[in-house]
C-alpha cells in the first residue's frame, strides 16, 4: 500500500490527536496568531481614537450570557480603549438579561483604569421595548432613565451635566447578539442620524454588511475574529486573541485534513478504477 492509499484509510485517531493538540498547545503556551485587521473594524478604532478626552461615547450592550464568549472580548477592548483615552462613557442595555452582565464588565474595567462611576461613566440600566427606549433617549436620556441602574438620579451625577440626548454624544457603538441592531438602525441612526457602529456575533454579522455600504453603519466588529482584530489595535491581547488562536489552528488543521483527503482521493482514484473498486 502506498502512502497515499494509507492516507485514504487513515486511522481517525490521528485526526482526533491533531484536533486535541490544536486546542491543548495554545492552552499551555498561549501565543498570538497573525490577525489581519479588516477596514470595517479599523474604522471603529480610528473613530474612537480620534475623539478628544472628555468627549462622550455611548455604548449599548445588548446580549445575554449565551453569546458572552463571542461578544465580551470586543466590549472589553472598546471600553479599555475609551477609558485609556479618558472619554466619558454612557452605557445602556436593551437585553432583558443584560443588566448584570454590564454591571460586571463596567465596574471591573472602571476599577482597572481608576474611573469613577457618575463622573467618568454611567450605566443607565435596562428598559423593555427597544424602539421606544431608543426614541425616548433621542429626546432626553432622562425620559426613559430618570435614575441610573443603581437608583441615582441622572441630574445628581456630574457626568450628565450638559448632556441631554444623542446630539451630545460623538457616536454610538452597539454590541449585540442580533435583533436589537435593527432597532438602532431604524429608530436610532434612522431618526437621529448619529454615527452608529455595531459589534455582533460572527454568524449574524453577514446580514449587516449591506448597511456599511449604505453608510448607516460606519463599522462592524464581526464575532471573535473582529474582537481579536480590535484587541490587536488597542494593544490589549485578551480573550478574543486567545480564542482566535484556538480557532485559527483548529480550522487550519481541519482544512489541511480536507485537502489531504482530496489529494489522496484523486491520486489513488486511477488505481482504484483499474482495480474496479469504488469508495
Amino acid at each position, binding site marked *: 500500500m502506498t502512502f497515499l492509499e494509507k492516507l485514504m484509510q487513515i486511522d*481517525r485517531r490521528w485526526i482526533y490527536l491533531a484536533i486535541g493538540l490544536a486546542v491543548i498547545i495554545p492552552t499551555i503556551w498561549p501565543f498570538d496568531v497573525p490577525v489581519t485587521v479588516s477596514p470595517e473594524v479599523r474604522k471603529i478604532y480610528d473613530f474612537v481614537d480620534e475623539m478628544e478626552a472628555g468627549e462622550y461615547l455611548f455604548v449599548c450592550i445588548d446580549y445575554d450570557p449565551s453569546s458572552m464568549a463571542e461578544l465580551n472580548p470586543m466590549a472589553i477592548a472598546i471600553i479599555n480603549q475609551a477609558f485609556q483615552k479618558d472619554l466619558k462613557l454612557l452605557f445602556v442595555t436593551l437585553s432583558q438579561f443584560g443588566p448584570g452582565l454590564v454591571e460586571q464588565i463596567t465596574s471591573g474595567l472602571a476599577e482597572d483604569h481608576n474611573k469613577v462611576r457618575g463622573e467618568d461613566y454611567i450605566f443607565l440600566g435596562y*428598559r*423593555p*421595548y427597544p424602539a*421606544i427606549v431608543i*426614541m*425616548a433617549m433621542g*429626546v*432626553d436620556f*432622562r*425620559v*426613559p*432613565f*430618570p435614575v441610573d441602574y443603581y437608583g441615582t438620579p441622572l441630574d445628581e451625577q456630574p457626568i450628565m451635566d450638559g448632556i441631554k440626548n444623542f446630539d451630545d454624544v460623538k457616536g454610538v457603538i452597539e454590541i449585540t447578539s442580533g435583533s436589537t441592531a435593527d432597532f438602532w438602525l431604524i429608530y436610532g441612526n434612522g431618526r437621529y442620524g448619529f454615527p452608529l457602529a455595531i459589534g455582533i456575533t460572527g454568524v449574524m454579522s453577514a446580514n449587516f454588511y449591506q448597511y456599511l455600504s449604505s453608510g448607516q453603519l460606519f463599522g462592524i466588529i464581526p464575532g471573535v475574529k473582529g474582537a481579536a482584530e480590535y484587541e490587536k489595535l488597542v494593544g490589549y491581547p485578551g480573550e478574543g486573541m486567545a480564542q482566535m488562536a484556538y480557532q485559527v489552528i483548529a480550522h487550519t488543521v481541519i482544512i489541511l485534513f480536507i485537502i489531504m483527503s482530496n489529494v489522496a482521493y484523486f491520486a489513488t482514484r486511477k488505481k482504484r478504477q483499474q482495480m474496479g473498486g469504488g469508495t
Partner: protein
Amino acid sequence: MNQLTRIISVFLLFAFVGGGVIAQPVEEELVADTLSPSAPMPPTNVRVKDKPNDPGHGLIVEWDLSPDDGAGLNIVVMYDILRSDSPDGEFVSRGMLPSQETQFEDVDDTPPTEDIPNPYFMPKNSNWYYKIVAISDQQVRSEPSELASGTTLENLFHWGKLPILFGVLIFSGFLLIFITSAKKGKELYVRPLSGINAVDDAIGRATEMGKPILFVLGLGTAGDIATIAGFTILSRVAKRTAEYQTKVLVPVQDPVVLAVAQETVRTAYLEAGRPDQYDPDNVFYVTALQFPYVAAVNGIMLREQPATNFYMGIFYAESLILAETGNIAGSIQISGTDQIAQLPFFVAATDYTLIGEELYAASAYLSREPVQLGTLKAQDYSKAVVMIIVILGAIAITTGLPYLLDMVTVRL
C-alpha cells in the same frame, strides 16, 4: 408546542411589565425650561375600538396627529396615552408613542391574584376612558385631548389566522381527493428515494450478518410530529425485521415514547404473524437527559455492533456524535430529521439522509399502500400551490401589488 406557550408567556410578561415601567418616567412630569416654551396642541378625533381577535382584554386607541406634529409649531415628539375606568377618575399613563404614530394597542390580560394585585387588568366587557397628551421637544405637555371610551369584547374567530384556516382546508381537500382516487385503484407514480431503497438492503444486511438493527427515535416527545413520523417508520421496519427474525433495538429517553414504541413494535410483529418473536425488553429506556442518553447509545453501538442504525425523529447536537460513533462501529446508517441545523451533519456522516419533508414521506413510501401514496400526491399539489404563490408573489410585489402578500400574511 412548548414554543407557543413560551411566546404567550413572554408576551404576557411584556404586557405586564411594559404597562408599569414605561409609564413611570412620565408621571413624574418634567419641569419645563426657563424660557417657558409654548405647549403643543393636543391630538384630535380620539377613537377607541375593541381589539379584534382576542379574548376581550384589549382596546385599540386611534387619534389624528396634533396640529403641531409635523406641521404648525412642529414640536411634538411623543404622545402619552392616559386611561381611567371612569370619565373623572384618575388617569394613568398606559404608554408613550413617538410622533407621527396614530395608534396604540392597550392590552392587559393578567388577572389579579391574591398575591399580585393588578389594578390595570382589563377584564372582558369592561369599559375604559382614554385621553392623549402631546409632549414637545422641550418636555412641555399639551392640554389633554377630548375623552373617548370603549368596551373590551370577547371575539369568536381570529381573523388574522384566516390564511392558516384556508391552508388547512385546501390541504385537507387535496388529501381527500387523492385518497379517494387511490382507493378507486388509480396507479400513482412515486419517484425513487435512495434513503428508502436502502432500507430493504439494510435489513437484509443485518439478517445476513446475524446482527441487530438499532433504531433511534431522537429526543422528541411522543407528541412531536417528527417523533410520530419516526414511529410510523419504526413500524414498517419492525414488520420486515419480524419476517426475517432480526432483532430491533430501540433505546429511548422518554417514558411515553417508550410506551408508544413498544406498542408500535409489538403491533408490527403481530401483523407480520410472529407475535412470539416480540421481546419487550428490546425497546428500553436508557435515561432522560440528552448527553447521558448519547453516551449510552454510543456504548450500545460499539458493543452490539448493529448492522444498521436508523436515526428518525428530532435530533439536536447529538446527531453527529451518534453518526460518527455508528461509523466507527461500521454500521450502515440511515437518518432523517426535520431539524435543519442538524441536516448537514447527517448528510455528511451517514450513508443516507431523509431531508425534512422526506422524513414525513418515508412512512408512505415504505407502506406502499395506495392510500398512503395518495397523501404524497396531496403534498405535491400543495407544494405546487406554494411555488405558484412564491413566483406570482415575487412578481406582484415587484409591480407594486401587495395583495398576494396580504393573503398569506398571518397576523397573530
